[in-house]
């Protein structure tokens, strides 16, 4: 993955896809309430590169199959922090789904 410094292309103007979200994320993680626009642009590049790299890794693992969530969990096997977060999110999502089902069943019964 190319280092940002070695790229010929400067940050993409004022608005990236994730600019709004990244400003909040950066503040939440400890930056000033109003992060510097240049810095947010760099973060956008880092995040885009990171997501791209991870998706390509997952593709390699999946080979001819379609990529699944299990492929992402596999490539995160050495990254305990991120893997733990992913498993937590999937567990919560399962919970939400079950809760919704129960709610719908109750609705029908009543």
């Amino acid at each position: 993955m190319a280092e940002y410094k070695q790229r010929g292309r400067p940050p993409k103007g004022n608005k990236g896809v994730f600019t709004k979200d990244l400003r909040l994320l950066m503040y939440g993680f400890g930056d000033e309430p109003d992060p510097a626009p240049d810095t947010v642009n760099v973060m956008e590049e880092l995040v885009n590169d990171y997501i791209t790299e991870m998706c390509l890794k997952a593709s390699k693992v999946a080979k001819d199959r379609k990529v699944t969530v299990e492929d992402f969990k596999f490539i995160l096997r050495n990254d305990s922090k991120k893997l733990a977060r992913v498993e937590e999110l999937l567990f919560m999502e399962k919970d939400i789904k079950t809760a919704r089902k129960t709610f719908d069943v109750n609705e029908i019964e009543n």
Partner: protein
Amino acid sequence: MLLDNFSEEQLKRYEVYRRSALSKPNVKRMVGQILGHPCSHNMSIVVAGFAKVFVGEIVEKALDVRQEWGETGSLSPEHLREAYRRYKKETKLTHNYQKRLFTK
């Protein structure tokens, strides 16, 4: 109990920390484009999830860098770049350890 002792500022930041995320539709679109097939609902949750952790790791390191350099104010691109350099170095360590098992 920890939350009871938070200042106004800390509570505000904590709420943003909990609630902020990369927009799921945008993540879905991006992942779908890269993979060449549709990104499922769960997959967008997963990718948004670990990408958020990634941002956190970079910002935390950048805050350390800022402090080491004796600077104040908003994080600068240089802080992020140095943070990213350190992040890459750290991630290489886990891979190298595995490789060494099979070479001299």
